[in-house]
């Protein structure tokens, strides 16, 4: 609250709705499976992300958060683009793990295509919010924080 015109501060109800019930679609693009297991940890009673309305859905068309794990390889690239186009807007992408954020331990592999953010900007050519959650694998707390930061950005952007 405070400075800024009333226009820029007006709450976008679409973005607000997404922050209140972000449904997550889990997309593994060639992981070592550790990140996937950490992601599932978020759903256990210990972290219980359903408290914030987060739940895992089975279809990209229901998704608000695209959770991309692992090192994207060339085979997966066209599928990734296809799936990104199937997610209804507004949505955010979270690149989980060092792999998704900046190639991680696969940095000199021959079969990989850049970090998720670069793929989204250069191949998909969209300015969707991409949050990088580093760690190999990241802790569940870090994953939740990543989603929260992404949603905050979405709310600010409106």
């Amino acid at each position, binding site marked *: 609250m405070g400075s800024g015109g009333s226009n820029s501060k007006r709450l976008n109800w679409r973005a607000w*709705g997404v922050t209140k*019930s972000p449904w997550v679609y889990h997309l593994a693009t060639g992981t070592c499976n550790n990140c996937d297991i950490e992601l599932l940890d978020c759903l256990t009673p210990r972290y*219980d992300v*359903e*408290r914030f309305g987060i739940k895992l859905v089975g*279809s990209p*068309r*229901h998704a608000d958060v695209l959770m991309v794990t692992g090192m994207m390889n060339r085979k997966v690239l066209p599928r990734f683009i296809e799936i990104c186009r*199937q997610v*209804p807007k507004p949505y955010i992408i979270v690149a989980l793990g060092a792999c998704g954020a900046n190639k991680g331990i696969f940095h000199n592999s021959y079969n990989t295509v850049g970090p998720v953010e670069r793929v989204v900007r250069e191949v998909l050519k969209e300015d969707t919010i991409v949050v990088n959650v580093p760690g190999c694998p990241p802790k569940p707390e870090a994953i939740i924080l990543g989603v929260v930061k992404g949603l905050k950005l979405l709310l600010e952007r409106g």
Partner: protein
Amino acid sequence: MVILELIFYPGMLFAAVIGLLSSWFERRVSALVQWRVGPPHLQPLYDLIKLAGKETLVPLGANRGLFLLAPVLGFAGATLASLILWKANLGRSFLGDLIVLLYLLVLPSLSVILGGLASGNPVSILGASREIKLVLAYEVSLVLAVIVAILKADSILLSKLGNTISIGSLSGVIAFFIALLAIQAKLGFAPFDIAEAETEIMAGPYLEYSGPPLALFKLTQVMMLFILPLFLMTIFLGGIDFRGLGWLWGLLKYLGVLLAIILIKNTNPRLRIDQAIRFFWRYGLGLALLALILALIGDRVGIRWL
């Protein structure tokens, strides 16, 4: 007047509000069973608002008109059903309302089938075909169970059925359990969540839906969560009596039925579609027929506990 009733009090808005609260109750109890905290009580509403604000995508291979019309159809059915059911509990009934209601309650399942088939996705079509089989499986048992209640109440008027507690006899108890399981299947809850099995066919018929149409489907589901337990209650447990503190007793009965449904949901694994059909056609139908015969004998001979 009728329009107002349809939109506000016993119709759409009322059923939606109670349904949203019931949906929260369902999620919260499920969370408690799993030793979790669960979502806040406005969560089902947030979900709907969010879905309403999302983009609507129609797949290329879909039949556009039918794809977008299907959710409206189910929603209309649920709205009318809640109107008829609530009015019957208020004591205003017309001849044959039970039959109309039974038909209206099929509409949501039908809309899911239509939507799944229209979306042109093979997995959705698989889900829709499972839903068709499931409807064919449980519908006969449900109708037979309802006939037992009709025999007990000696009337086909919903308001009369609502005044009779037909579970107070052997056949009534059997019929109640059959109807409870049929309603579990109608709601698409485990062990009968075969059509939208999230872990194998990714939400089945709903797979291709996004945005407002999906919100309409969710709203229909939520309303059914209010209508179906109330239906079961009206038929077998003697509806809601609005005189004095009767509504409190009615509320307790409603919560009891809802709790039973939720606990069955949380303690059972999913059946395969062939197992579900075998279950309903063999045990469901057999037990419902047994209950019907017992009720007929009790009626003829005059043994009240049969």
